């Protein structure tokens, strides 16, 4: 009993013991006093705010050891453990915190859309509101610098690279067949709904060691993390319709959507340059399931699409043309888990599976391909502090590709199973908020060719002045040949490219100027000696080439009220000797000058956004057999003026009208020459132009909130 009393007495003495004063001063890196910093003893209420001289003083009843914490928005937290009695006349030096807003960004080569970075060239909405993009997630990217517009193809052609040299990733998992297959000069589009993604990062070179097997470019798409609203979306379009629904329960959510396109009725109304037998039809569906764990997020994404069309393909050598039909079925799914393992470690795992079946009929020949593909990946990330982070990862790609060619009397079966094992590590170091480095290395083993290849990647960024920064990037990149070639020669080693990039970025008050210059060196490019890759061609990797140029991008959202516009210009000088090229030449898909002007004007009174896009692409090369030489002539320039109008009826309803190539300019992309000379000894030609002079799209989009229906209130 006595002991208890004593200890209680002791306790009281402790409580009533005299107060200690803690005092000091807070300065920043430049010795300037910090006003308004929060100073306190951890675990107590004792603390204060610094005054105009950065000075502080407060009393505490704590004794012995305590932890003093000093914090302020924009600075790293400061902590110091000491005897309370010794905390007098403290000098606290704050270090400015490094965050995405005030620090340099390692952005050489990269253009991002989204709010994650201050250097976003595009905003998420631009993907759907850019005139001419017509809801294709790749469409808006075609207006960015570094791309060569190929409106007859629709894929991304980056800095002298072919469409095959860009790889697309969804939540960091490779998408194996991202584009709907087309032919007959109908531009393709991405398979995926642009509304699913809330972050897009498009790299035109010098990208991270995390991404391999891509020679020129990577496009990274991130699906929305967690929907917070149950809703139903309806789309009624001049070319079809769609429906989407989101359900949320507890920590789970599911979003599904289905779309049906048919160009049949449209083709009846508006003349097409192609002679359709079966009009273009597309059925697609997507589903995303998300589950939130205490420390992470699981996502499962699945998409299926089926497309079908057939045309009578014009051909200069076949009088009435020939039948060309294409059916494609594609499944793509990925499973993803992102989570924290501890305070400093986080993990990202992904598994993607794809199945693609393509049935092509050319006149009487059938070419059927089947592809199964898998990508598995694990990435660990350790964050030491805001200044130093490291990634480690391994990944595996497995593909099985089969092709059956069936002509009237014969059947050829070929197949190939390429594989690629990759491992990478990359460190990100911020020396200060004005200087940052990223250094990575990637090792790849290609199963078929038994090649082990190492690719270093480096980038650096330095702040030149308040609004200017400069950045550099270097990288070595490899990519294996396409499956339709590998099936004939499996030993072909991957093609290779080196990128050197120098970037200047200016940003001030909603204005952004980005200037970038680059040099790209290609080697070990695929070569063969026939018109097309055939089973008896002689294949090699004896090709090489280069691409050099510069890009300019200017975006201004503030100078004129309600007007947001960007101008992008790319200069490209490229030549290569690859495939069946006779000499070094500029390929048909690479144009010297590319200019895009995009403007969006918000008409307050009309609740409308008017958009305009003008594209100019200088002439593309083709071979004129009436003259000597290879790729010896150029088409006239490509020009297109696109307009759109989005009218917000209310929060839930939008009407969208878009016209591509308003002026109906007759653009020519290439020429096909006759195999035989005419009576005058000349080779006749046929212009390969647009699928249609104009494309008109009208859509009505209606969102029905799943919660208390807003429409009742409006």
């Amino acid at each position, binding site marked *: 009993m006595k002991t208890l009393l004593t200890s209680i007495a002791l306790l009281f003495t402790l409580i009533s013991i005299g107060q200690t004063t803690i005092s000091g001063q807070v300065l920043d890196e430049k010795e300037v006093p910090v006003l308004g910093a929060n100073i306190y003893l951890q675990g107590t*209420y004792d603390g204060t705010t610094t005054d105009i001289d950065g000075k502080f003083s407060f009393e505490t009843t704590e004794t012995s050891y305590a932890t003093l914490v000093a914090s302020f928005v924009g600075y790293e937290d400061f902590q110091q453990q000491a005897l309370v009695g010794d905390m007098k006349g403290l000098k606290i030096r704050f270090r400015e915190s490094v965050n995405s807003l005030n620090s340099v960004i390692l952005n050489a080569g990269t253009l991002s859309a989204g709010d994650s970075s201050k250097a976003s060239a595009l905003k998420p909405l631009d993907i759907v509101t850019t005139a001419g993009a017509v809801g294709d997630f790749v469409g808006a990217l075609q207006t960015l610098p570094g791309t060569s517009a190929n409106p007859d193809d629709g894929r991304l052609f980056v800095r002298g690279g072919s469409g095959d040299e860009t790889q697309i990733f969804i939540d960091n998992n490779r998408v194996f067949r991202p584009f709907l297959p087309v032919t007959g000069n109908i531009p393709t589009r991405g398979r995926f709904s642009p509304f699913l993604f809330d972050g897009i990062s498009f790299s035109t070179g010098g990208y991270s060691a995390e991404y391999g097997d891509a020679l020129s470019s990577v496009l990274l798409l991130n699906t929305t993390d967690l929907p917070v609203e149950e809703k139903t979306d309806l789309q009624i379009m001049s070319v079809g319709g769609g429906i989407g629904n989101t359900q949320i329960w507890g920590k789970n959510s599911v979003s599904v959507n289905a779309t049906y396109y048919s160009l049949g009725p449209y083709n009846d109304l508006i003349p097409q340059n192609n002679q359709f037998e079966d009009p273009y039809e597309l059925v697609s569906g997507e589903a995303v399931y998300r589950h939130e764990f205490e420390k992470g997020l699981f996502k499962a994404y699945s998409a299926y699409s089926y497309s079908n069309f057939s045309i009578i393909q014009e051909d200069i050598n076949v009088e009435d043309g020939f039948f060309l039909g294409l059916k494609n079925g594609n499944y793509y799914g990925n499973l993803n888990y992102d989570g924290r393992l501890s305070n400093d470690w986080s993990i990202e795992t992904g598994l993607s599976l794809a199945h693609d079946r393509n049935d092509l009929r050319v006149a009487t020949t059938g070419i059927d391909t089947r592809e199964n593909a898998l990508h598995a990946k694990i990435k660990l990330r350790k964050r030491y502090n805001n200044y130093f982070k490291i990634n480690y990862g391994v990944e595996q790609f497995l593909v099985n590709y089969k092709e059956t060619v069936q002509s009237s009397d014969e059947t050829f079966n070929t197949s190939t199973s390429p594989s690629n094992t990759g491992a990478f590590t990359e460190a990100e170091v911020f020396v200060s908020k004005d200087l940052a480095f990223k250094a990575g290395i990637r090792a790849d083993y290609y199963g078929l060719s038994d090649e082990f290849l190492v690719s270093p990647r480096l980038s650096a960024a330095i702040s030149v002045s308040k609004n200017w920064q400069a950045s550099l990037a270097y990288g070595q990149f490899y990519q294996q040949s396409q499956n339709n070639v590998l099936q004939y020669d499996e030993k072909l080693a991957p093609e290779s490219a080196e990128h050197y990039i120098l970037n200047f970025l200016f940003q001030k008050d909603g204005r952004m100027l980005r200037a970038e210059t680059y040099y790209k060196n290609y080697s070990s490019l695929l070569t063969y000696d026939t018109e097309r890759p055939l089973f008896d061609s002689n294949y090699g990797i004896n090709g090489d080439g280069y691409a050099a140029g510069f890009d300019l991008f200017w975006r201004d959202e503030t100078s004129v009220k309600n007007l947001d516009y960007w101008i992008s210009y790319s200069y490209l000088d490229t030549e290569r000797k690859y495939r069946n090229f006779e000499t070094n030449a500029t390929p048909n898909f690479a144009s010297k000058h590319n200019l895009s002007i995009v403007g969006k004007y918000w008409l307050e009174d009309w609740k409308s956004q008017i958009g305009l896009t003008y594209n100019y692409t200088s002439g593309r090369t083709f071979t004129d057999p009436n003259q000597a030489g290879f790729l010896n002539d150029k088409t006239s320039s490509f020009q297109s003026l696109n307009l759109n109008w989005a009218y917000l009826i209310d929060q839930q309803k939008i009407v969208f009208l878009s016209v591509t190539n308003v002026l109906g300019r007759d653009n020519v992309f290439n020429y096909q020459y006759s195999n035989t000379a005419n009576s005058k000894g000349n080779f006749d030609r046929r212009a390969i132009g647009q699928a249609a002079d104009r494309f008109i799209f009208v859509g009505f989009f209606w969102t029905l909130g799943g919660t208390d229906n807003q429409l009742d*209130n409006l």
Partner: protein
Amino acid sequence: MKTISTIIILLISISINAQSSYEKAMLKGMELMKTNPLAASQQFERVAAAESDQWEPAYYVAFCNINSSFGQHSKDKTVLYMKKAQDYINDAQVISPNNPEIMILQGRLNTAWITYDSSTYGMKLSGPTTAIYEKAQKMAPENPRVIFSRAEWLIGSARFFGKDVTPYCGLIDKAILLFGKEEVTGFTPSWGYKNAIEVQTNLCKKE
């Protein structure tokens, strides 16, 4: 027996003592809110750091920082305030999940983001914000702050689309009525009356 009761009494008095120092610290924060929001935020931060099972301190840190996010500071700073507010909303939500008071704070923070950059956040956050208010409304239909914040949001949307706002003025009136009846206990949020009067005078005044 005597010993035990002494200990119990002692323990109770100690805990009362501890309770009151929490109250004192919170009261100091509430006082500071009237004059110096920055100091108030910091006072609540200190309390939040010391009391990991009370949601109110984190709530008030978020509240103060949201109030600093409507254009009084430079753009860079504003983002930092909004991020800080989000961190503390997350903390408060962990301690007290599904709390309508915290939910409407999230709604207000979303509004701050939309005000900050409507072309980036307008479409992205307007749906979620509506959903938050509807959920809060279902859970606490008689909470004046819920009614007021939701009505304010609906008025904002209606104004953006050039629609009549009068249908929502009834909600503001109802909120004001309920504000008058509200009994404030402890440190649960009690703000909103003045704001509601302001909205009523500026936007709902009948000619």
